[in-house]
């Protein structure tokens, strides 16, 4: 089980076969993430629609996606959760956790939302 999430997090961190570039944040606090549309769509109803052929814009074969209203700090947690299913809320500050709650609601990550809310 831990082996699986370890491998999955390595897909997130070291992969060379990503096909989505997600730009997160605004102004000075911007970060680009590389990810796999197949994983995002499988794990999240939001991304299933957002990354469907009806909506995507591509550049050089890469899907480009902007998510300005979420900060890189929060998106880090989200992405890690999406890939591995793992999350340790103790590591984070209260205000981050509140932001995480809001973001998981917007992105319809219901399990995550419930988990954070209980916390």
């Amino acid at each position, binding site marked *: 089980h831990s082996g699986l999430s370890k491998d999955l997090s390595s897909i997130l961190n070291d992969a060379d076969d990503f096909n989505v570039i997600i730009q997160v944040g605004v102004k000075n606090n911007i970060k680009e993430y590389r990810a796999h549309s197949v994983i995002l769509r499988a794990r999240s109803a939001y991304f299933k629609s957002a990354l*469907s052929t009806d909506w995507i814009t591509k550049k050089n074969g890469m899907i480009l996606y902007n998510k300005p209203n979420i900060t890189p700090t929060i998106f880090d947690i989200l992405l890690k959760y999406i890939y591995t299913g793992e999350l340790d809320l103790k590591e984070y500050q209260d205000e981050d956790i509140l932001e995480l709650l809001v973001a998981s609601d*917007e992105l319809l990550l219901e399990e995550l939302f419930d988990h954070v809310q209980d916390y």
Partner: protein
Amino acid sequence: MSSRKQPKGKIRPPKKPNSADAQFNDNWDRLAQAIREIHKKNASILSFEELYRNAYNMVLHKNGDKLYNGVREVITQHLEEVAVSQVVPAFPLSGASSSQTNPNGAGGANFLKVLKTVWEDHTTCMLMIRDILMYMDRVYAKTANVPLVYDLGLDLFRDTIVRSQNYPIQNHLLEVLLQQIKLERENEIIDRTNVKASIDMLLELTDASTKDTVYATDFENKFLETSSEYYRVEGQMLVGEYDAPEYMKKVDKRLNEEEQRVRHYLSQTTEPKIRNIVEEELISKHLKTVIEMENSGLIPMLRNEKMDDLGRMYKLFGRVVKGHDEMKSAISDYIRELGKAINETVTSNTTAEGGNAASGDKQTGATVAVRWVQEVLDLKDKFDKVQNLALSNDKAFQTSFNEAFEYFINKNSKSPEFISLFIDDNLKKGLKGKTEEEVDSVLDKTITLFRFIGEKDVFERYYKQHLAKRLLLGRSVSDDAERGMIGKLKVECGYQFTTKLEGMFNDMRISSDTMTDFKEYLDKSVLEKPKLDLSVTVLTSTFWPMNLSASPRCNLPPELTKACGTFQNFYLGRHSGRRLTWQSNMGTADIRGSFKARKHELNVSTYQMVILLMFNDKQDGESLSYEQIKGESDIPEADLKRNLQSLACAKYKILVKEPKGKEINPGDQFNFNNDFTAPLQRIKIQTVASKVESEGERKETREKVEEARKHQTEAAIVRIMKDRKTMEHNLLIAEVVKQLQSRFMPNPALIKKRIEALIEREYLERATGDRRVYNYLA
């Protein structure tokens, strides 16, 4: 719907200028605009992220209902435009809808094509709208208990397009669909994809009040109604124009077409309904007409053995309730009719020949009986074949055919005798030209006829008589075949019947052993040897059907009387306490006759021998009168006449009769025919062969049967009462019938008489309290 009442055009937000409202208005304007772009197929310029976030924010700020209603308004507005700009212009030309088929068909097809496009566009857009409003679906729609946005889209499509209040879209749609189906029924090629698209659309839409599909509520009933009418008219037309086989092929084709149609573009739920309609209109309503079609209906099919057509009718008519019943009763009636015709040829034959029944004429022998049985067997074969090849061996049909056979076979009162004669015929000359297997299969079939006989006891009586003659006259060809037949009868009638038959066989075997012993006895004995070879068959009187209790009158020649005496002494010496009576009416003799041309060995009956020996003492040309022969031989009159007939009037004329003629009359003179010639050295003078009984004999047989039935009935009553001790009248009658019906059908009056006889003889008594109840008296 509340949104309908709002003015068309932009949604007007409430006039309460605060920043939240302004924010909402701004967001909503952008979202509404985006939905319009989606409708214009311009989605590529839109950002999912923004639109989603927009809607998300609105719901988050408790503006879910405004958003929801706004979306409803925008979609409705769009669909109204679609109706006006796309659907209405595609309406097929009205007025021409029923007469000009082809142009109208094309117009209709185009209409369906437009509708298909409109529907596909709508569902595609709704999927995209659903994407960006996902948050609204998950959070708002759930708590507000309103349909998800995609379903809202379906409802709006239903109300704005399919069931538009403003334009007669629904009428056109239904009319075109029905028109297309009608065209296809009339062998036009239609574009099924367009029809299917519209049908699928109707299947996806739900009727709000019934919760059923719009297909079911709006289309299906109309489809079924028009189909009913269509096939009602077609049925009337087809029965008028086609013969039965063609009619059935058309119906088959129609059923197949409708099934295919449902499979290709209607709902499976319609399949049994449309099938019922075709079956009702094309089969049920014309059952009798088709069955009774003059030169092509059921009877002509049977007459001409049209197995394919019969099979088709069986399959087709089996689909409807009364179908097989009608067929069954028509076929059964036909069997009865054919059976009646077979019976009639026989009765007309026998009455015509009744006058000279004893003359030995071929027609009066067993041939009438054999022909009757053969014709019945042929009929049976024919219907077995029909049963096998066309009716899937349907048990219900078999039962009804059997009843028909039973009916006409029992209409012929001579059938038990005929069947026995037929078996007799086969066992006598069966092997000539037929293999043993063939004989066996004929006998097997005969057994099936035997089963149809109601009066099995009458058959048994005849069978015993015929078997006795076969055995005693050595006419049976194969012992195996005889025993095989007895085996078959044992299965049908039980052992009490066959033990007697087996007893007859036993007597034959023991007699042959006895004769070997007798010859040995003579060789060793000091007695004078008889001047003739005597062969004796000793019959046990209870096994054999004839009355053996006394010797018939006949003056035997002295040598024979002496030889008989020698055998009698030998036999009684071995079996004391037995009584032998000589049956001179059944024996045969081999005698040598010297004629002018040559000597012949004559095989004759004992009676004939007695008659011929009288001429030994006569000079050439000296004649004997009928009265002289009768007086000297003492042979009973009927037997004497028959034997004289065989000698003087049949194929070999050993005696010459004056005056000539077929009948023997008092005063006739007989001469030995010295001029007799025949190609063969050995001649068999036919004793009168087994034949259909004369009226007198029949009456006698009948009386014997009645007598036997009395005993069997009494035996059954006593058996039952001994077991039950006391029983009510009707129950007793029912039980007696049950026990006896395998042999004959006893009538209640007969049973009642027997009960009374048993009361008289004090086997039974009436109960003191209730005269309808009997007690058994031990």
